[in-house]
């Protein structure tokens, strides 16, 4: 089979769709493998892509985690000798970059990819090939960022890479070039992902699922995708300015030419603050699914959770300069941004209240997922409250760039974002793999992580408030204070804590391996869940649902299983998940025509790192990369997103009931 023109013109219904290919273009036959590595590498299936996103993110979590542990080893004692100053600076820069851009964001994307279509009752995302492209672009960007380790040293300017320290004079290795170009590439992945998911959520919902009947996870992902859509271009600009300066001699941050170093700070944080909500809102979404399920109650105040999510997204645009309270903005700007920052605590507080009220009066079942969800509420609150103390600008001038800030953001990031993701692992694992993670190991995993995390980051509050700045490759006994419980002690505790934390994470990996080896299959509906993704097999079939369900309620699945007795008001189970599935299968849609795999996404994505390497080392290479990109774009646009019916097994009968994937 060669590549075929798109068979059915959209919007022109009165011209019959050609049943057989009319014209052939292009050079590559479509990939057809349904098993083996090719079925993964060329897939456009949102579930496979979701799993691959997850695997890549997990890999980078371990990388970032090992970097973190090295940091802690260096800081375990005064005048540490584990890392040199140079390597240390690379280490924390890459630790943060890896964790933020290559772990939390892709992991959130993994969940979004896998579960948003399922939760809204769709067969795939709106643009399946773009989805595949986004994934491979992320991989390319991640490789570029990390490649610098092997080519003369990684970026060493801190994750916010303030100018002019990131310029060619002060950071002469190529690390910052790799960093800037690599993040530029992962930005493309986020941007395409954002467009894709927003369109998916808006356009591909099952019949009856109005926006206000959407699961909260999907809602908060929608907010996140809007944040990405608008925040990524800002860092794109910043990174371009930086790259142009480093690679082509532009003067953007060259103070001798009259540049203002604050330009970078503003651009970075205009992106950077929405970014922190990009990191945490998906996890808020996850626990907003988990808490109701294990409390046997709907989410308390669903519309408030949704709108406060949107409000956080919105207000998050007006607070960026709280990262610059000591930068010399002048009192007026400082006052404005200080107050704006405090305002953000209000919608976030609404969420905390709603989560608490969700478990209030419930029937709580303490599974591992529930543990992580509750852990998030508690730990995030600690981090959020220290955030409020930063928002008070005069106090922040004492706190900024000390370990007190490091404590704040690890509580919100680790206690918030990562606990949420772990709740998601335990909650959705049976859905994704048909097997349940071991609950006992899961709880051990949880407790080690909670203890480890509090041991690691709790003392940082004290270390910071007693004046230890961050980003120091060594600290000195001379400023550690006296007595046994001095800063030296707390630094040691933090370092030991990071090892406890590592063992906690290690338990998770062990759990994954153990579960993969076990033969025990998870029940269809292990948690008595509430939302649509549980209304199909585990793992779901390629087309997700045999029959697209029609939605009548928020928590549709729950309402199909349970009913309230009109007299006693008692809530009784009226159907099991198996009943509902049987019903689905009986009414299955016929000849579901799913989008076909394609070579183009990975080829197109592959061109981008080549361009990046070219910009760093030799422009001709960049031209080769650009040629790959252009050719791949042509190939892509000439290839219909769905192979013709004859490629399908069994071929469509021609009675017109086939499903067309959209253009993407």
């Amino acid at each position, binding site marked *: 089979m060669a590549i075929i*023109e*798109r068979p059915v*013109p*959209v*919007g*022109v219904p009165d*011209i019959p769709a050609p049943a057989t290919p*009319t*014209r052939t273009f292009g050079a590559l036959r479509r990939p057809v493998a349904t098993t083996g590595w090719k079925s993964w590498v060329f897939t456009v299936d949102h579930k496979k892509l979701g799993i691959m996103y997850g695997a890549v993110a997990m890999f980078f979590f371990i990388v970032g985690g090992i970097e973190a542990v090295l940091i802690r080893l260096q800081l375990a004692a005064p005048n540490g000798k584990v890392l040199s100053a140079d390597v240390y600076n690379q280490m924390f820069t890459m630790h943060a970059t890896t964790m933020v851009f290559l772990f939390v964001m892709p992991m959130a994307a993994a969940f979004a990819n896998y579960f948003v279509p399922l939760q809204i009752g769709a067969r795939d995302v*709106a*643009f399946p090939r773009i989805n595949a492209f986004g994934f491979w672009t992320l991989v390319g960007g991640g490789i570029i960022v990390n490649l610098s380790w092997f080519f003369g040293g990684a970026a060493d300017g801190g994750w916010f890479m303030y100018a002019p320290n990131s310029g060619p004079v002060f950071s002469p290795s190529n690390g910052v070039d790799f960093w800037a170009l690599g993040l530029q590439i992962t930005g493309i992945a986020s941007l395409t992902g*954002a*467009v*894709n998911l*927003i*369109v998916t959520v*808006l*356009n*591909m*919902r*099952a*019949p*009856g*699922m*109005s*926006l*206000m009947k959407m699961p909260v996870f999907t809602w908060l992902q929608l907010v996140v995708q809007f944040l990405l*859509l*608008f*925040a*990524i*271009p*800002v860092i*794109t*600009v*910043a990174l*371009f*300015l930086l790259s*142009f*300066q480093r690679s*082509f*001699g*532009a*003067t*953007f941050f*060259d103070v001798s*030419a*009259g*540049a*203002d170093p604050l*330009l970078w700070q503003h*651009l970075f944080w205009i992106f950077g603050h929405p970014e922190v909500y990009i990191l945490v809102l998906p996890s808020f979404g996850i626990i907003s699914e988990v808490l109701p399920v294990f409390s046997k109650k709907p989410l308390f105040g669903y519309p408030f959770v949704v709108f406060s999510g949107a409000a956080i997204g919105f207000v998050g645009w007006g607070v960026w300069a709280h990262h610059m309270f000591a930068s010399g903005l002048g009192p007026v700007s400082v006052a404005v941004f200080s107050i704006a920052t405090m305002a953000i605590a209000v919608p976030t507080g609404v969420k905390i209240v709603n989560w608490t009220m969700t478990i209030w009066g419930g029937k709580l079942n303490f599974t591992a997922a529930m543990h992580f969800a509750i852990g998030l509420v508690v730990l995030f609150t600690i981090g959020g409250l220290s955030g409020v103390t930063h928002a008070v600008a005069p106090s922040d001038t004492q706190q900024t760039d000390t370990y007190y800030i490091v404590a704040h953001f690890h509580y919100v990031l680790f206690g918030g974002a990562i606990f949420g993701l772990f709740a998601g692992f335990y909650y959705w694992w049976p859905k994704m793999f048909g097997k349940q993670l071991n609950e006992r190991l899961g709880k051990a995993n949880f407790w080690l992580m909670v203890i480890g995390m509090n041991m690691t980051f709790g003392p940082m509050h004290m270390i910071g408030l007693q004046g230890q700045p961050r980003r120091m490759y060594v600290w000195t006994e001379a400023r550690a204070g006296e007595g046994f419980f001095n800063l030296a002690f707390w630094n040691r505790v933090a370092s030991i804590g990071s090892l406890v934390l590592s063992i906690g994470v290690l338990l998770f990996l062990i759990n994954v391996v153990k579960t993969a080896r076990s033969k025990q299959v998870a029940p269809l509906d292990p948690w008595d869940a509430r939302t649509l993704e549980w209304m199909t097999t585990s793992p779901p079939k390629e087309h997700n649902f045999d029959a697209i369900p*029609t*939605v009548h309620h928020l928590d549709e699945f729950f309402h199909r299983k349970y009913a309230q007795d009109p007299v006693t008001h008692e809530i009784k189970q009226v159907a099991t998940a198996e009943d509902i599935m049987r019903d689905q299968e009986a009414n299955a849609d016929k000849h579901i025509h799913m989008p076909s795999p394609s070579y183009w996404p990975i080829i197109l994505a592959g061109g981008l790192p080549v361009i990046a390497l070219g910009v760093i080392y030799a422009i001709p290479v960049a031209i080769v990369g650009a040629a790959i990109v252009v050719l791949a774009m*042509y190939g892509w*646009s*000439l290839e219909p997103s769905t192979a013709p019916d004859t490629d399908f097994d069994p071929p469509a009968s021609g009675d017109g009931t086939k499903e067309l994937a*959209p*253009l*993407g």
Partner: protein
Amino acid sequence: MADAAVHHADHGHHTSTGLSNNKLGMWLFLGSECLLFGGLISTYMIYRGRVGEGPRPGNVFDIPFTSVSSFVLLMSSLTMVLAVAAAQKRDDRGTTLWLTVTGLLGATFVGGQVYEFTAMYNEGLGFTTSLFGSAFYTLTGFHGVHVTVGVIMLLSLVGIIKRSRVPGDKAEVVELVGLYWHFVDVVWIIIFTLVYLIPT
């Protein structure tokens, strides 16, 4: 937004917005581009007066020349909209004609920009000369790249439509490229005023 969905939900059998995925995607992309160009324009605004030893904006701008090329780009929006209208009437001849004209007008604009850059370079304003130079070339260069990409898309589209058997079957693609094209024009409307007409 919520209203529209609810409204459609009432229709019964489906709940999507009733809009094309592709068009929705394109509008989202354009919304995102606002932040990109906003950043570039703001950077230019901060740096336009920082000329160091190099020439000032007033020394290098040739307003009459740029006015003409701005006009060319503006008129390409008209031809573009005519192409879209033709495509929606499934008039492939008209579509390809107007697309070609649009592409040529766009190419003229890009050519004008190349000429303008050369002239400025000869007057002593290089990319690395001053902050003004770096910011100016970055902003207008980004816009120029957008126009170039647009021209390539337009001309490729002409080829594709000519090869297509089904009349009007590319109407939506034409519309999407049109949206992109108009956006690029609209950005120039802003750049022309803020960068060229309002001097430092």
